[in-house]
């Protein structure tokens, strides 16, 4: 058996960020990745590093998201220095467009609520009217009546991020084993053993970061990860000269020039097919927002599955029955990469999750339904 300090299951953005952070902390770490049979949310996401919509009614999630966005510039700079890969991170602030009065008033109420919930942590935002917004965003369509704005939002090339995390992990001494589907494990407190094609591996710590795969893996380790798939569809235009100075919730121009349009939220199980009706809705809303998008060709479109906990908030736990086993589940592997690499991994290295994360436990779902 080959022994390591830590095993990370899942080579997507969540697992890679944690494995990168563990390797940087000096742990001998092995990263197990499945293969092209996996759903791979990390290869299908929208690429936002997004703060302003997250944590309404859950200030701990608002803080965690913002702390992650605050870690992002340092993580991006470190990855560039150590791997020579630019993840194209920009943080110019972001806006959420509203196409009618109802949307605008709902947004205004939501932002006010989030600011109140933020308390001393603070939450800077502004509601912008059409006139102000038209000065910020070239070619704004007449259907847009206003937007919310915060300085916290940004975006990145998430494929480059995944590549850089993998490369950085290996450069820091980590071992990457692809094409490994974990079906069983020998589990004891502080002693975890996994059979692989390369022989058995063992470690005192194990992190479950297998996305939708966590749902079935968690039970082996005395953990609970009730995640379900939620489909999102994305359209991408041809590359064009850069026009949009900041990302929006469902429209962003990448650093390379392509304009990404999203996103849908569909409960359809493990189904990654695309639906023309949904694609039409996405395109129509984008053209209402920016009529000049009509001139651009769509060159690619795809669907992918978000990893969605029941209440939409991340789940983080250490197993009580098998200490040393941790789980990380979320639908925001891009936004939370900063926190996972720079904050979460050091907690695992230290052997305990900070009390900041107490509210993210899956025990929050263990509430008997009222009769």
């Amino acid at each position: 058996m080959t022994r390591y300090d830590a095993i990370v299951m899942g080579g997507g953005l969540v697992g890679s960020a944690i494995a990168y952070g563990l390797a940087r902390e000096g742990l001998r770490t092995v990263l197990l990745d499945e293969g092209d049979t996996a759903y791979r949310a990390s290869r299908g996401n929208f690429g936002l590093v997004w703060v302003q919509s997250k944590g309404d009614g859950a200030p701990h999630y608002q803080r965690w998201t913002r702390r992650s966005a605050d870690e992002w510039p340092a993580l991006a700079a470190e990855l560039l220095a150590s791997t020579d890969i630019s993840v194209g991170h920009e943080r110019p602030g972001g806006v959420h467009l509203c196409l009618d009065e109802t949307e605008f008033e709902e947004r205004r109420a939501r932002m006010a609520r989030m600011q109140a919930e933020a308390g001393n942590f603070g939450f800077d935002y502004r509601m912008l009217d059409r006139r102000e917004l038209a000065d910020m965003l070239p070619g704004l369509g007449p259907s847009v009546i206003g937007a919310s704005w915060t300085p916290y939002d940004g975006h990145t090339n998430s494929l480059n991020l995944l590549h850089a995390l993998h490369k950085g992990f290996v450069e820091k001494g980590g071992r990457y084993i692809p094409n490994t589907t974990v079906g069983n494990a020998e589990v004891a407190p502080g002693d975890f053993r996994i059979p692989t094609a390369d022989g058995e591996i063992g470690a005192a710590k194990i992190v479950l970061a297998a996305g939708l795969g966590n749902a079935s893996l968690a039970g082996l380790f005395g953990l609970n990860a009730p995640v379900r798939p939620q489909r999102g569809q994305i359209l991408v235009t041809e590359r064009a000269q850069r026009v949009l100075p900041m990302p929006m919730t469902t429209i962003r121009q990448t650093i390379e020039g392509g304009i990404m349009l999203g996103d849908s939220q569909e409960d359809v199980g493990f189904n990654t097919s695309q639906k023309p009706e949904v694609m039409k809705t996405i395109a129509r809303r984008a053209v209402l927002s920016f009529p000049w998008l009509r001139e651009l060709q769509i060159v690619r479109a795809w669907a992918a599955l978000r990893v969605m906990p029941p209440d939409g908030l991340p789940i983080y736990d250490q197993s009580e029955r098998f200490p040393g086993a941790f789980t990380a589940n979320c639908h925001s592997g891009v936004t939370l990469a900063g926190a996972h690499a720079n904050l979460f991994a050091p907690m695992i290295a230290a052997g305990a999750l900070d009390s900041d994360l107490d509210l993210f436990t899956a025990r929050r779902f263990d509430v008997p339904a009222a009769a």
Partner: protein
Amino acid sequence: MFRLRPEGDPATIAVVVEGRTTLVPAGASAAAAVLLAGFRSIRETPVQGSERAPYCMMGVCFDCLAEIDGVPNRQSCMIEARPGMQIRRQIRARKVDPAA
């Protein structure tokens, strides 16, 4: 670098590649016209500005992007050459006019 196969159809369709009039056989693609006209590249990439020429010739690689009859970023390998067609270099990312 490229020549027509002698047993193929004769080159009878006149297109203009970057101002250079070129004859291609009926049914040839605009990308074939670029190669027959002797150009070593037909576009500059959006980010780094490196030169690219038609490569896969089957609609997959997007390296043959060109401005065809005034429309930017066309996949020239997927477009049949027509008499009088104007094929021009795609220089970096296409322009957009938000004010239009």
